[in-house]
């Protein structure tokens, strides 16, 4: 999709800059992307904002080799479903990792990156990507 306007990205900044989702205190489920209603508890649900630790492992992945213009300069790139340690799963690019090395079960941590840019003078979207954890940073 092409650029939709500033507000569409601006209103999600907390979520995509800090991986802020929700925790339902009724059923103890963590949600990312954020929800307005707990889909399990509905009216009985109690959602509280929750910032994820940003650690998890790769549930599945693909190496993207054909992409629309907004991602063309990044190909080939790894995109994956990351299962966060709290239980929610999200879709993100994996960086700082050779495409030969990525595998299901790989431990990853979030990092802050430029996601894409809509043309020469368009919006630049920043947010989360993930990279392999490293011993030196204490993230295993």
């Amino acid at each position, binding site marked *: 999709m*092409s650029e939709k306007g500033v507000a569409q990205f601006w209103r999600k900044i907390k979520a995509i800059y800090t991986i802020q989702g929700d925790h339902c205190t009724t059923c103890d489920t963590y949600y990312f992307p954020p929800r307005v209603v707990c889909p399990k508890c509905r009216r009985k649900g109690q959602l509280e904002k929750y910032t994820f630790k940003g650690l998890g492992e790769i549930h599945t992945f693909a190496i993207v080799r054909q992409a629309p213009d907004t991602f063309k300069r990044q190909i080939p790139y790894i*995109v994956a479903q990351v299962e966060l340690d709290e239980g929610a799963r*999200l879709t993100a690019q994996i960086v700082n990792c050779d495409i030969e090395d990525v595998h299901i079960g790989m431990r990853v941590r979030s990092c802050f990156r430029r996601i894409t840019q809509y043309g020469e003078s368009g919006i630049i979207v920043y947010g989360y990507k993930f990279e392999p954890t490293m011993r030196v940073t204490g993230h295993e």
Partner: protein
Amino acid sequence: MGKRVAIIGVGMSKFGELWDKSLAEISLEAGMYAIFDAQVKGKDIDGLIIGNMSAGRFTGQEHLGAQAVDWGGLGDLPAYSVEAACASGGAAVRQAYMAIQSGEHEVMLVLGTEKMSDVNQSMAMDTISVASDWEWEGMFGATFPALYAFMARRHMMEYGTTEEQLSMVTVKNHKNAAHNPWAQFQKPVPLEIVMNSGLLADPIRVLHSSPISDGAAGLVMCSAERAKEFSDTPVYIESSKQASDTLALHDRADICTMSAVVSSSRNALKEAGLAIKDIDVFELHDSFTISEIILTEDIGIVKKGEGGKAVEEGLTEIDGKFPVNASGGLKARGHPIGATGVAQIVELALQLRGDAEKRQVDGVEKAMSVNIGGTGATSIVHVLGR
């Protein structure tokens, strides 16, 4: 239960890259063929439903219902547009089924249409990805093929499904499409060509993916009691069921199963009073070959994890025990998104009538279509009978 519903006419435009024709022209073509086939007159029709995913993005035109009535010279006929991503066509069929069952409409023209080649490939890829959860999948770089690659890779790990099996679905469907005059690709393709075709999103290759297509399909549907007024060869909708699942693939506990397909197909069989072994021919939504494999499992042709083996062993060939996609499927017939669900029903009606020529399956009494939207967030199942 309301009235029984019949399909009395079918029509198709050619599927492919139809540079010389507009969206309205291909819709009109399919509708006119369906009307001629049904031997109804314009004045017999009391409503029109058109399934389409994204004409607004692909061509710049919305309000397709009114446009179809206008181009067809159908006067002030009420017209409805229906959208459910790749299941828009199936949704149109189901809406007509319910409208006729209720008695509100008696004879309806049902169209499915999409014109994808009027935009460049980048725009087409962008538009296709709005069928997924764009804000949380597409925006982060997960193209539509990448989402199916997610399923494929997981399926390979959990069940040992191979790239060769993913490729055999292509070989089978191209072989079938060679006998389908409307198909986009009417040529067989050897396994090694499929296995060496370019990668879209590993492990999914170009020839594991349905193409970008233009095309339209049409049906005339009416109540069973009026069917014989018009047609000697009506076929009947035994059941029509629909189910939903999470919009985003990452919200599903198990991405190797489409639970909306499991429930809608079970419910459809139950209402028709049939078991899976009673179905003689299937049209399953193979937007990517992994989805045909997953669907053969989810509707119960084989157990979970054995879909790859099923195609390898020839179970789903035209002369196999459970023929799948005798038409060539989305892979080879083409996948003009909104047209697909209607085209599936066209194929099954022809199979039931014995009119499928060289791709005819022997002795078809019952048939099933599965049309899914996005990565399985919508599933629409129809069971047809003679």
